[in-house]
């Protein structure tokens, strides 16, 4: 059976679930068919994947210097 075509707007709605692997196999197949022929949606996909990859290593927010020491002190000071 031929894959049912999908619009760009539908692709964008599901792009996050696609990246997280949280879509049905049929939807995945439809989206993959779309990415092969639509450079724009492929760019949105790659860009979004890059964003997720870039921020996901936990270093985005640097802890203020001395945070641990101050926290430790406060715990020690608890009644």
């Amino acid at each position, binding site marked *: 059976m031929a894959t049912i075509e999908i619009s760009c707007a539908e692709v964008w709605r599901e792009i996050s679930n696609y990246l997280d692997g949280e879509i049905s196999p049929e939807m995945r197949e439809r989206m993959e068919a779309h990415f092969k022929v639509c450079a724009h949606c492929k760019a949105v996909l790659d860009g*979004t994947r890059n964003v997720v990859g870039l921020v996901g290593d936990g270093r985005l927010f640097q802890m203020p210097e001395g945070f641990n020491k101050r926290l430790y002190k406060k715990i020690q000071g608890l009644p």
Partner: protein
Amino acid sequence: MFPQSQLRDNEAELIRSVRDGEREAFYELVHPYERMVYATAISVVKNPADAEEVAQEAVLKAFSNLATFRAESKFSTWLLQITYNEARMKLRKVRSHLYEAIDDSQPSEDADYWPKDFADWRPIPSELFERDEVRRAIQNATNSLSRTYREVFVLRDVQNLSTKETATILGISEGAVKIRLLRARLQMRDTLAPGIDGSWVNGQEYRKARPW
């Protein structure tokens, strides 16, 4: 002590020690989560000084309320729930001094979000993140998200928590987490495209490529 426990191996033991009066054990218990607590706080309050205050208050509150923790959820989820609530309280306190509420736009979640432009993105090297300029741009982009999107984005993508954990911490449905995450990711892509596609990687100016 904890039937059907979600606790990590040594956490039950540490909690027992804390309840027996060993304060050092509490520090050991929360230490692995300090960064998560801080990131959760800053996703709500934005400002590093307020975030530290919130994070520390949250940890102290967790200590005082440890007796109420039942291990039906992970310790980290419980701790981050406390942190999120503290951060919301802090935000209300800060706002009560202002005439105008800041960053309280609650974007509609019904309408579709349209990505702005479509220049081609190549996979980017992870070393990129080492550069201050890049990290600052990502922080600014994160801060430019509306709060409801930023909270979800920080828990899911920065801290890699599951949809379910994120929903529990924020007190919203898993469906709402997914919708907000989608918006946040697409907006982040829109904001960062000029850098990631252009100047940061190949030193060239970003060329927009709109399909219409």
